């Protein structure tokens, strides 16, 4: 059975239909790259999956948790999928360690000692064990993004959504974040990532989704998508035309 089931999802902003009927099933352990021009709806799709945007038609479910617009259902869904943002969105008034502890304590009611142990473990996993007491503005962009990953992981999600997580980083910091994501992929985490890192998508992903004008325009394993794109739009996007 698929882990994430997206069925006929439509989303409008006013009169502008951003998603025009998306179907996508993701199996456990799959790593999916979503590529496409800006405005093609790829970020919106990702944001719909954990309820940051409401959908107008269709359905989304993650491991049996349906996307419904009330707080109870949203919480159940969000406990299963973590999300990482382009702008990191760390809580600037808390240390890295506290950032990772907070949601465990207030959402899952984990005792402080356990939450701290988990936070230390997760920060170590992203290579930042020594930064437990550092505030976000004392960290580089790459380090902040890795703390954000640790924060999402500490909630023990079964899938992670990554929304252009390296786009706000200086080029030399991109790799340290991608290395962490690659590690997660190899450990079997289910990942859906909107990305512009084509080499990374080719190396790490199991499937690539090309979105164009609110639809899944082409989908397939990375070799097929990148080496022999079928549609003129994808060919143009990849610059092979």
């Amino acid at each position, binding site marked *: 059975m698929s882990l994430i089931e997206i069925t006929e999802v439509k989303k409008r902003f006013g009169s502008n239909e951003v998603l025009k009927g998306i179907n996508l099933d993701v199996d456990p352990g799959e790593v999916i790259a979503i590529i496409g021009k800006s405005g093609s709806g790829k970020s919106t799709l990702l944001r719909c999956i954990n309820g940051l945007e409401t959908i107008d038609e269709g359905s989304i479910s993650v491991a049996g948790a349906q996307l419904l617009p009330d707080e109870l259902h949203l919480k159940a869904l969000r406990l299963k999928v973590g*999300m990482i943002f382009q702008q990191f969105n760390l*809580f600037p008034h808390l240390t890295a360690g506290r950032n990772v502890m907070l949601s465990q304590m207030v959402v899952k009611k984990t005792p402080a000692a356990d939450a701290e142990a988990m936070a230390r473990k997760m920060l170590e996993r992203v290579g930042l064990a020594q930064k437990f007491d550092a505030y976000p503005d004392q960290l580089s962009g790459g380090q902040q993004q890795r703390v954000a990953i640790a924060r999402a992981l500490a909630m023990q999600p079964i899938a992670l959504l990554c929304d252009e997580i390296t786009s706000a980083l200086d080029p030399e910091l991109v790799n340290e974040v991608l290395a962490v994501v690659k590690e997660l992929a190899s450990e079997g985490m289910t990942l859906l990532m909107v990305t512009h890192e084509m080499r990374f998508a080719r190396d790490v992903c199991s499937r690539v989704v090309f979105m164009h004008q609110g639809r899944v325009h082409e989908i397939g394993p990375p070799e097929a998508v990148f080496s022999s794109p079928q549609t003129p739009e994808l060919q143009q996007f990849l610059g092979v035309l």
Partner: protein
Amino acid sequence: MNDFTTWDIVRNLLLAARWTIVLSLVSFMGGGIVAGILLFLRIGSSRAGRIFVQGYVELFQGTPLLMQLFLAFFGLGLFGVNVPAWLAAGLALILWSAAFLTEIWRGCVESIVRGQWEASSSLGMGYVQQMRHVILPQALRIAVPPTVGFSVQVVKGTALTSIIGFVELSKAGTIVTNATFQPFTVYGLVALIYFCLCWPLSKSSQILERKLNVAHRNH
């Protein structure tokens, strides 16, 4: 006729300044409590609450404080309620401060970027948890300098209550002038005392602003 020494004048003014201070504190703290309640209605999910608070703020910001004092003092009298000057003064100033503080604090809450809401949502937090642990701690920090700055307005606002007969610093100035016929000396001293009350507040607002900004230089 009695001769008044400068010390007589200063002593009387300082005694009256106590009431300026008390009225300022009551207005500021009372206004803060009311504003806290109004703030939650203003940014909450209830449409009726939002519209009510918006109307309240516009009403109090759109009319002179003096009119509000008159209405509190004379208006309630029309209904047969005998309102002493101190009560009318306190009430009007509390409601007036609340309107401005609500608006200042709303701005602070809304200045927290949307990403903070989204990140905390995506971690499964509910509205109250987000407010309590993520939004308000950051908003409070931003709110301190403008709030302290506004307290200066409250201190100066208390001067208006002299018109409805509350004896604070300004009213005392008038009374002392009538007895001494030295308006320049007396009002000069009154101004000096106001300045001594307000300047440290303005200054601390500036210092706080710099201090809190340094802790948050990248946000």
